[in-house]
């Protein structure tokens, strides 16, 4: 399809797709991990001052 240099062209696009894909997966995984840790901490009774303020308000 791309002539004698197909391996260079396909290789370039594959590397870009792989690295961008890895970035997206890493960011999505990190978001889930941070959210899960926050929920664990809050469930154990540790809350931020701003969150305490909200629950304590009449």
């Amino acid at each position: 399809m791309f002539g004698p240099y197909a391996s260079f062209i396909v290789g370039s696009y594959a590397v870009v797709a792989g690295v961008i894909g890895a970035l997206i997966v890493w960011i999505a995984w990190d978001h889930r991990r941070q959210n899960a840790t926050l929920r664990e901490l809050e469930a154990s009774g540790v809350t931020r001052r701003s969150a305490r303020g909200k629950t304590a308000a009449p």
Partner: protein
Amino acid sequence: MAVIDLANPTRFLKLVERLLPWLALATAVTLAIGLQQALSAPDDYQQGATVKIMFIHVPNAWLSMFVWGVMSLSALGTLVWRHPLADVSAQAAAPLGAAFTFLALVTGSLWGRPMWGTYWEWDARMTSVLVLFVMYLGLIALWRSVEDPSRAARAAAVLTLVGAINLPIIKFSVDWWNTLHQPASVLRAGGPALDNAFLIPLLIMGVAFSLLFVTLHLAAMRNEILRRRVRSLRMMQAAQGAA
């Protein structure tokens, strides 16, 4: 919502939650159009089909410098205005900038082999971009190695501003020195040297990669804010345990 309200991380997070799906959609659509245009562009009379590598190499090269520019603005935000999100922005952008710079180097190398007969040459453009990549890695290492976040933020901000000197060196290296790398073809005096058959797909890919960066940057900033909340809660937990 006033811009100053975004200094509040909670409000910023709410805005990011609303924006991210739309940004991701815009990125996917623009990228799909750009890829279709890039892959159906004609072969170059000299470079043949390898010109297709340009459509991914150039946007990554643009972003490698643009991201450092964003981090430099964030560094000013940290040092001058002490904006609460400035260091978050810089820290979230660094791995993205490192990835785009890595991709610019790898795709450039894969383009160079069939066109120049070599994967690598220590010319001014390639060497200055490699220096940029090493600086990204150095900054990431700095943030990880300094335990006090405010000290790490100030040190990283100073290093970022010093490193910004490399940006004009990269941009003008092809004019100042005799390099194997070709001179600028798009952002140059006298207008782009590319035919529209190549320029239009390239610009669409440039917009697509810029949207990709904005999307990933906002998502990574959201993660960084959550990470800092986790850290402060753990410190509170440790303090309660010690009391």
